[in-house]
């Protein structure tokens, strides 16, 4: 399989090109809107997303409930907005955890080399061979369902790719003259890592993140749909689809809106990563 090399960082020329790609802009714009909605969510929800009102079950859209109500009489729009918060914050947290574990380990492993490096890479090969979803199922299965467990499971597997990427960058950079000069000048390891090497890692890391975010969102919502992730009554898009499943013949609005939201957000992420991939592909040819 032809792999896209993330090792070269994006040049200023390419970054300008990327910025002139309207599709990338569109994707970024949509995601920003969703982030904004997630941030100000509690102030813009029209109704309490958790308030059950059996007399208002499965209502069509109205002034009070702009998207209608679900099978327990809860406002669908409010739940969608609340769900945006859950989805955005979980994906962000998982991403952050993955970076916080993967990047330092990859840097240290690459820079120190030697026995630590070998040990870590063997370990990483081992876990990396186990498919991520399998681990998620195993963790959720044995520890019991729950958002935290699912996030843990995803983070457990995903940090590996990041550690590998960062390590390979460090291995390349370490041999360059400016690092050698820094060593000769008497800079300590931490100074070199922090002052010189961190910024080399940044741009490939950003590319990798862009490629991954959409997959994180899909994975987490899938696990919630299966009932392994977010637990009802907490609103999350995948969980909402799961709850509405038995009613969707009578009330298709229950399944339309959350699904469309997932589709739009992941689509926007993919627009961005597609743009980036295009540029990397051209260069690799």
């Amino acid at each position, binding site marked *: *399989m*032809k792999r896209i090399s993330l090792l070269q960082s994006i040049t200023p020329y390419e970054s300008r090109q990327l910025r002139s790609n309207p599709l990338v802009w569109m994707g970024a714009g949509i995601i920003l809107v969703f982030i904004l909605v997630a941030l100000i969510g509690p102030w813009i929800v029209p109704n309490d997303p958790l308030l059950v009102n059996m007399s208002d079950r499965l209502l069509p859209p109205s002034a009070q409930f702009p998207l209608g109500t679900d099978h327990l009489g809860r406002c669908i729009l409010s739940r969608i907005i609340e769900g945006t918060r859950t989805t955005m914050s979980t994906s962000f947290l998982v991403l952050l955890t993955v970076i916080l574990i993967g990047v330092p380990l990859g840097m240290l492993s690459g820079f120190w080399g030697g026995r630590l490096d070998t040990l870590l890479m*063997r370990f990483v*090969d*081992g*876990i990396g*061979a*186990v*498919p*991520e*979803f*399998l*681990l998620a*199922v*195993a*963790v*959720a*299965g*044995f*520890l*019991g*369902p729950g958002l935290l467990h699912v996030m843990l499971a995803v983070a457990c597997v995903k940090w590996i790719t990041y550690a590998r990427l960062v390590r390979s960058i460090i291995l390349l950079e370490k041999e360059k003259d400016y690092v050698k000069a820094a060593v000769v000048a008497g800079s300590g390891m931490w100074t070199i890592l922090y002052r010189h090497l961190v910024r080399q890692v940044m741009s490939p890391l950003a590319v990798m993140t862009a490629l991954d975010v*959409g997959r994180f969102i*899909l994975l987490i*919502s*899938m696990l919630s*749909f*299966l*009932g*392994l992730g977010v637990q009802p009554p907490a609103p999350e898009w*995948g969980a909402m*689809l799961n709850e509405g*499943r038995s009613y*969707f*013949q009578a009330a*298709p609005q229950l*399944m339309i809106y*959350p*699904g469309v939201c*997932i*589709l739009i957000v*992941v*689509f926007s*992420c*993919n*627009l961005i990563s*597609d743009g980036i991939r295009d540029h990397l*592909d051209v260069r690799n040819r």
Partner: protein
Amino acid sequence: MLLQLFSRMIQLIFVLLMLSIATFLLMKMAPGDPVLTILKASEGAVSQLDQEQVREQLGLNLPLIQQYGLWLWSVLQLDLGRSLVNNRAVWDLMMDRLPATINLTAGAVIVLLLVSVPLGVVAAKYKGKWPDHLSRLFALIGASIPSFWLGLLLVYAFAFKLNWLPTMGSGDIRHLILPSITLGFVMAPEYIRLLRSGILDALSQEYVRAARARGIAEWRILAKHALRAALLPVMTIFGMSLSGLLAGSVVTETLFAWPGLGSMVMEAIIQRNYPVIQGYVLLTGVFVVTANILVDLSYRLLDPRIRAKRGRGV
């Protein structure tokens, strides 16, 4: 080559060991005391003495490493314990469910090929023109749509509204159609992209120029030379797709009440049926890891260029 094979085998064993340790530890971490569960199932009152006895019988007083060894030995003899729900052997349970999952996966692969090969070829043939853009848009949507939502939409349209196909369950071939589309469709984008770039690569090669010079029809060049060259990299991601197919099968089978391994493990998770979960994780883990390594090896065998390079290098 032999050296390669050997080191791959070592790696395989190492990974499988890691997998077994992980499942063993997860099983140990699972909430609930197995001793109490067993005793409660047989009698009413539980005395301290009984507990000690059962603990000894089960070997739970041994050091962890010894317990692991004993457990691994029984696993190697395909003894994966018994289901907590109906007391059937986990291995038999899984073998009952396996054919349904294989059927579903085969159906999904057919859908996958039917979707991705034409789109990949067309996209490469009309590079930069509207068919290319259309196929790309299709691939983007396919990569973004959650499979479970697609399944729901398909059921709504084809089973409820049009009444063409059954909503769920298994039986004749018509039951297989919607689940196969659900599972195959979301896997297609990766393949479309790969086929497109593979064919474009091949089209710029010398042998395609030579074929053109010989006056061979364009579609024949595409089908015979370019597509064949492009299918090789597709084979490699096929190994990786296996884990995607298995992940998808959990969702799809749950959605369509398809009696395969995926719906089995979901039931087991809801019922906290730990031996079954463990069996599933082990079985599918062995599948995926072995498939990946086999594909990797066969790739080396199939592509003469890689083989030659290796031969010269060593």
